[in-house]
């Protein structure tokens, strides 16, 4: 069962780390949201990397002409996260999902889908759920890639995405 306050805390903290969060109640709503968000990117230049490993990734309706298998040249990556942590508004990516964790790192826009029942309160809860055998790579993503290395001026999109959008289903 979904804990509503957990979901709300997650969405609130996502906002605090300069990412956008949307809610979708089912497959249809998810599809139209993905479409709308991807469509906001520069028209005609969009190329979408979607690993199509999870059920939700497979169900996303993207015209084949826009799809690419090459995440290095893609402009947006649409994929489902392994989990999320409410405390910090973070997404959790696991190498055990069978898709490249770096796929969500190289494109300028990362559009993440996360299931509400995969939201954990804290990292302690997440680690407890993962058990003693950890995947080779766990990546915690909290907001877009950023730097303040030049005169402490905050700039996004250094090496990773400059835009992070999250849809909670």
């Amino acid at each position, binding site marked *: 069962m979904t804990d509503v306050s957990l979901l709300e805390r997650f969405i609130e903290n996502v906002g605090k780390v300069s990412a956008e969060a949307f809610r979708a109640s089912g497959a249809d709503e998810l599809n139209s949201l993905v479409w709308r968000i991807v469509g906001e990117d520069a028209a005609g230049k969009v190329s979408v990397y979607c690993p199509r490993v999870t059920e939700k990734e497979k169900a996303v309706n993207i015209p084949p002409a826009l799809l690419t298998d090459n995440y290095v040249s893609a402009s947006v990556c649409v994929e489902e996260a392994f989990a999320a942590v409410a405390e910090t508004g973070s997404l959790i990516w696991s190498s055990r999902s069978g898709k490249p964790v770096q796929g969500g790192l190289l494109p300028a826009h990362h559009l993440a889908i996360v299931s509400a029942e995969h939201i954990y309160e804290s990292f302690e809860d997440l680690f407890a759920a993962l058990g003693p055998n950890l995947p*080779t*790579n766990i990546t915690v993503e909290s907001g877009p890639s950023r730097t303040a290395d030049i005169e402490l001026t905050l700039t996004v999109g250094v*090496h990773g*995405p400059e835009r992070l959008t999250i849809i909670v289903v």
Partner: protein
Amino acid sequence: MSRDTAPIPFRENSARALNDAALRHALVVATDAFVRLRTAAVTSIPFEDWRARASDIRMEVLEGLPQYVERFTEAATKVGAQVHYAVDASAAREVVASILTGHGVRKVVKAKSMVTEEIHLNHHLEGLGIEAVETDLGEYIVQLAGETPSHILAPAIHRSRKDVGKLFAEKLGVPYSEDPAVLTKVARKALREKFLAAEAGISGANFAVAETGSIAIFTNEGNGRMVTTLPRLHVAVFTIEKILPRLADLAFFARMLPRSASGQPLSSYLSIITGTRKPGEATGAEELHIVLLDNGRTRIRDSEFREILKCIRCSACLNVCPVFRKVGGHAYASTYPGPMGIVLTTLLDGMERAHPLLDATTLCGACSEVCPVKVPLVNLIRALRERKVEMGFTSGAEKHAMTAFGAAVGSPFLFRTGQAMWRVLWGLARHVDRPPLNRLPRPAADTFRRRLR
């Protein structure tokens, strides 16, 4: 031990820094911002309770360090990492070099690591014809400029946006710009090519977990993720005291480190890497080498200065230090500047070279107050000062002045006489056309003791 034992010319370096108006401006802007962000971040948490717990965990590790090193090595080996133990800087350089040359690697990307600065790894690799490119934006800037980092978290804070614009125009052949957003995009493009061409990645580690054999890397830019996932070969170099006992401790320190460092609840990215790529996975280096470096840590652990090894390199003590805020990191001429740097440099490089740094403090205690792991920095600096006097690294003039002062405050007659003489001497000295004699402070019109009565 450093081969170079000539004393660090801290006074000369600071005088130069103080005369550099642009540097002073940059330092004020940066340290003020860091202090403001950190203060805001720690007021929303029970900081005193948390740092007591953080200190306990770090002490637990130092108590049982040999066992934790063993446990980490065992766990990391089990998940596919190859663990190497390096006793000093030259051994670590040799290990890294032999791994890279053994694989015919010519191009390496690096994530920011102060330990590889400590062992001067890049210079060594360069000599072997291996290109090692720093990928943290600040590190990339100082590398292009042929400099060293001036701050352990923000390596290029001493440089203005104009400096960076000129540097990029000159070294990368791009049009001049002083817009940080444009400059960031220039670096993104230049470094993206380096990432995709690299045959190996070298990183440090913010923490290592004994329980699982994992290493943890915090970054905001995403370069740590790239260095550790794009090339097939990953070499991680860090010192033995970075270990935490359990994975749950990492969850706890993930709250402490970013808040103390940049005032963020969590950095944009945290990578937890546990061994090499397993069947069915599409991420992870195929070969992971972990170089566990001692470089004096065991010696420090067994001394009265053990607590400096609790340090998690957040840099909060640099930003609040009244000396660091004025002179910046380069004046210390060492890998680690600021209060934690004074202690660590003296212990690592030896008193002969580092003793001038022990003057780079007012002992005001601000550093001890902000430390997230309760390193008693002021006490450690004071203890090192005592050792400096014992070892004879104090100038004759200072020794005589202190002896005279000690005698004077011990006798009311001598003290009063001294005060009276000072009035006469000051009147004469201010006519001497030579600093500092003509700049000595004017004695108070009335003595404090008399006014108190």
